[in-house]
């Protein structure tokens, strides 16, 4: 018995909050979720912990999403790292766009950072360009065995050609952003956590 409370104190809660912009309540919920996913109570998540989520494992981009939690070849993600990636999907509030202090880094859920996250899902080797080959591979992940190689190559060629402006055969982040100018990125890449 004794005074065991239900919330384990989140280490560095304040700095995480400043960095990601999540409210205290949202952070608590995410921390609870982190602990639930961390089955063996290791204090960090491994790829396997994320792969156990059924709905994520059937997602055609599931593997790419899981990879995005483990940048630079790491094998573990701790709670701050977990929340940092999730922060990309925080809805854009009015308060974020108002006070744009030029000295502070751009918030993680800005339009640019959301687009950058999506860009990373395509950019397999992280070199800042989506080559035709990478496009083909990601497409293959999304369609599985349902589409022939020829059809897939056609789609990949068309997509790269349309977005590629400087003719180098690859799509850079700037070109990527330009081709999605008109898209309502903020709405499509946001998940609202209920109070």
């Amino acid at each position, binding site marked *: 018995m004794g005074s065991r409370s239900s919330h384990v104190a989140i280490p560095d809660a304040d700095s995480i909050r400043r960095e990601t912009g999540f409210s205290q309540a949202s952070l608590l919920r995410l921390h609870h979720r982190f602990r639930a996913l961390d089955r063996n109570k290791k204090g960090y998540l491994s790829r396997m912990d994320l792969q*156990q989520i059924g709905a994520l494992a059937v997602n*055609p981009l599931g593997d790419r999403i899981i990879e995005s939690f483990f940048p630079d070849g790491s094998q573990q993600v701790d709670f701050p790292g977990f929340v940092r990636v999730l922060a990309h999907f925080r809805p854009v509030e009015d308060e974020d766009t108002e006070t744009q202090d030029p000295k502070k880094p751009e918030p993680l859920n800005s339009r640019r950072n959301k687009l950058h996250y*999506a860009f990373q899902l395509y950019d397999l080797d992280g070199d800042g360009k989506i080559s035709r080959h990478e496009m083909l591979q990601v497409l293959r992940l999304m369609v599985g065995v349902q589409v022939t190689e020829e059809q897939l190559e056609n789609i990949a060629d068309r997509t790269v050609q349309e977005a590629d402006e400087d003719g180098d055969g690859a799509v850079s982040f700037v070109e990527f952003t330009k081709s999605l100018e008109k898209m309502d990125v903020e709405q499509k890449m946001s998940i609202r956590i209920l109070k």
Partner: protein
Amino acid sequence: MEGAELAGKILSTWLTLVLGFILLPSVFGVSLGISEIYMKILVKTLEWATIRIEKGTPKESILKNSASVGIIQRDESPMEKGLSGLRGRDFELSDVFYFSKKGFEAIVEDEVTQRFSSEELVSWNLLTRTNVNFQYISPRLTMVWVLGVIVRYCVLLPLRVTLAFIGISLLVIGTTLVGQLPDSSLKNWLSELVHLTCCRICVRSLSGTIHYHNKQYRPQKGGICVANHTSPIDVLILTTDGCYAMVGQVHGGLMGIIQRAMVKACPHVWFERSEMKDRHLVTKRLKEHIADKKKLPILIFPEGTCINNTSVMMFKKGSFEIGGTIHPVAIKYNPQFGDAFWNSSKYNMVSYLLRMMTSWAIVCDVWYMPPMTREEGEDAVQFANRVKSAIAIQGGLTELPWDGGLKRAKVKDTLKEEQQKNYSKMIVGNGSLS
């Protein structure tokens, strides 16, 4: 010398008491009402504790992390609507938004993971193991808790272990003896008697209080009984009220001894590990069993694994392909008195049994349901889902389409292929590839 004599005397009085008050009534299926009195006292104590706790907690700390309420606002639009980009249906760079959003929704909240941890209680039941949210309230409560610990570990545990030991030994000895007899109705009657007595003893060793509802629908000979699975104790609970033929793998050790003894008296269906993989062989043997109308009904748990008793997961279709009449049974435990869920990744069998024996009691409801058969034009999967719904509704459990095997293994690729198929149809199926 005197000490040993005294100990011997105490032991023998203890055993005679146990024999008289518990074992003999079990043989005749009679209850002396001792457990009812125990339960009444227990319920009163827990009610008192609940009131004290509610008076004690400040209002804000009721931050219910209730698993059933969603924490994110879900956009349940189908893939087509969610993927509509600037140009309609062809592939676009923005398609990745939809999938990544769905992926992240699953990361933040999914309905399966929470089914493999024990159900959280609304109010504490004075067991440390269920103390998730509850804080120190008052010295009186602590006293009651300490008293509870003493009662559970020093009084109840030895009693229960003795009973369990006697129960299992009697089972092994009894069934072996009965197995020596030639096949006859006397043998069947004796084997039933032995099974029922030993099961009743074992149930008492867990302080089990079981309510059977709708006994008129109890599974008949030549049928198949299916039930939702929460723990190995499910078997005990069902066999206390009737004899079943069990299906399962041959184990080693203690379980193996019990299995081998039981099969001498009564035709259970045990498979070698290698045989289990051959589904045709399994189906064939089960079909043979139910074809013989004199044989006991088979007991099967189609979920294939233990779930935490808040929901029912996918029923594997194998049991529903055999044919015959299905007798569904719903089992719901009352978590207030003890958590019956066996989290096999967290606890092994022995520690699980010890936890069971140091809980207050195992209280559960068993509902027998009217028999169901496969209808015309219904395939095994649809039939399985129909039975699953019926059991979920009766037991007050939620229904999930996911496979319980997700606990251990990764999701089957077929489910992922379905998503990929849907997506491919959209970007390719329209023909406009240019």
